[in-house]
């Protein structure tokens, strides 16, 4: 299996002047293609910071991050945008759908960024919305969807560009446990069927157990990396 993510000696400091906060303290991490990994840890342990840095939303203070062998810490903003657009999908805790776009248009947006023609876009979006269980809801606006349905739209949006990696920041935090379980089933199915690598952060023990690999962070360091205890 190929390395999708390679994080080496990453630190991240926040703050200005004399007051500095070190969010990450020399993190090393490798994710192989097709992994289904979860990151856990208390609030402030650095989970979201690490996800942001791997996703190219933030830059490390030191260290390198390679996505599919390419050091993204040296990329310009434009190249990084293209990398995110084509190779990395994001699923956020609070869905972050565009409220003025329908489910179909939200999902279609990333394909539009890839300059895919309208007919193909519509065909792919409809297929993926069916896959995530939103058949018949494509013309609903986010406000007309439940939390779980909105997260499914967000997942559809993330997988549509056929990325190598999907980063999910607490994807089940805003839904009930039953919906959370269904969403995890969906992510796992997409991982198996499409071979997409997943890395998600979570506080939820049930979610951690569903992962095939559990990475625990504390105070900006990886303190445990292996299979979940009952996984």
């Amino acid at each position, binding site marked *: 299996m190929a390395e999708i993510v390679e994080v080496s000696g990453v630190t991240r400091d926040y703050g200005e002047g004399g007051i500095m906060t070190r969010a990450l303290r020399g993190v090393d991490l490798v994710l192989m293609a097709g992994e289904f990994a979860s990151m856990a840890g208390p609030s402030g342990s650095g989970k979201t910071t690490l996800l942001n840095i791997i996703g190219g*939303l933030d830059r490390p203070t030191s260290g390198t991050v390679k996505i599919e062998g390419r050091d993204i810490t040296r990329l310009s903003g434009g190249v990084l945008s293209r990398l995110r657009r084509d190779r990395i999908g994001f699923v*956020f805790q609070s869905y972050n759908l565009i409220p003025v776009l329908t489910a179909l248009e939200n999902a279609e947006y990333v394909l539009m960024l890839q300059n895919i023609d309208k007919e193909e876009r519509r065909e792919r979006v409809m297929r993926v919305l069916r896959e995530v269980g939103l058949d018949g809801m494509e013309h609903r606006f986010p406000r007309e969807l439940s939390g779980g349905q909105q997260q499914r739209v967000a997942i559809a949006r993330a997988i549509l560009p056929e990325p190598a990696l999907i980063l999910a920041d607490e994807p089940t935090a805003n839904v009930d446990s039953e919906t959370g379980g269904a969403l995890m089933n969906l992510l796992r199915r997409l991982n198996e069927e499409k071979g997409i690598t997943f890395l998600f952060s979570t506080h939820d023990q049930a979610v951690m157990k569903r992962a095939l690999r559990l990475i625990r962070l504390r105070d900006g360091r990886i303190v445990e990396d292996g299979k979940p205890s009952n996984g």
Partner: protein
Amino acid sequence: MIVRLAWRSIWRNRRRTLITIASLALGLAIAIFFIALSEGVHNQVVNEAVRMQAGHITVEHPAYQAAPAVDLFIGGVDRLRRRIDGIEAVEATKLLIRGQGVANSSAGAVGVAVMGVEPSVEAGTSPLARHMVTGSYLEDGDDRKTILGEHLADQLKLTQGSKLVLTTNNARGELVEELCRVKGIFRIGSDEIDGYLVQIPLEFAQRVFGLQPDEATQLGVVLKRPAELEATIGAIKAIEPGDYAAVLPWQAVLPEVASYIRLRRTSTWVFQSLLFIIILFTILNTLLMSVVEREREFAVLLALGTRIVQLRQQLFVESVFIGILGCVAGMLLGGAAALSLQVHGLDLSGFMPEGVTVSGFSVSTTIHALLTPPILLWTGGIAMAAMLVLSLVPMRRIGRLRMTESLR
């Protein structure tokens, strides 16, 4: 998709967008209305002033402006006049003889401006004939008749039918005295005209000043459409390109009126611009608010791979939409208000019972706006351009967006 996103985004806070559009529309409407009103007043001033004089265009001896004197006349005016009359934009042409003199009566003597006019032409082009308070205006065929201002008549204790002796120098420098009779007395409302001007028939003036029937000091041209001034001057110069006569626009003949209008026009535009800038600041505030509120959304779009330039395009298109809606509404509103005032006019005589004079020329107290396509297009264009310039501020702000902080 960007256009669709922009259109829907502006309507997500309908009230704010409507307030923004209304602010822009109102600012533009006020600007259009007052600029059109100002232009209307200027038009009235110019119309009254130029028609009292030679018209929109004056053809005269090249040296006359520098040192006005009756010996600086032009000859062969009938042939030239016939050719100018053939120009489509020309409403009328008129011959004038202008000189200085002294009006004498048994009550005293007063220095006057003597203007020889063609009565029937002058009655149709000059407002003077409408302002007779005693007697009547001159008619073709009148000989040794004169009309004069009420103030002058009072000074010389003249009434209709009184005798008046005009003393002047003719074109050869000889002193001449001619007796004439007062046919009418006018009141324009301007001290300078009412106390100084004497009009006599052209043939009588030619005799008084020693000119031939084909000679005059001015050949005036009144236009149907003042906007065609430059083109008509060009056409006249094409007819008479030599050094024989100068072809002057009214601005050169009435520089004080032209200066007044330039000053008024500038101050109107400055004042309206300042007002509009104040309105733009409130619009800028709402534009910035709409960006600040959506920073998280923009961060998500950036995370998905949207480039900054695409976000800027979206903000630009939003401003274009708001600009178009605001400008169209403003142009309709301001245009309708100005057009209404153009048609119906506004009588201000209650506020200004003594009348209004500009540079010695009386202006009607019923003011009319003058709405022209350039006023609409310029003000609308400037408002739209200002709106687009304004959009640069939120566009710049979006460039400083910190994704991770906004996504938190």
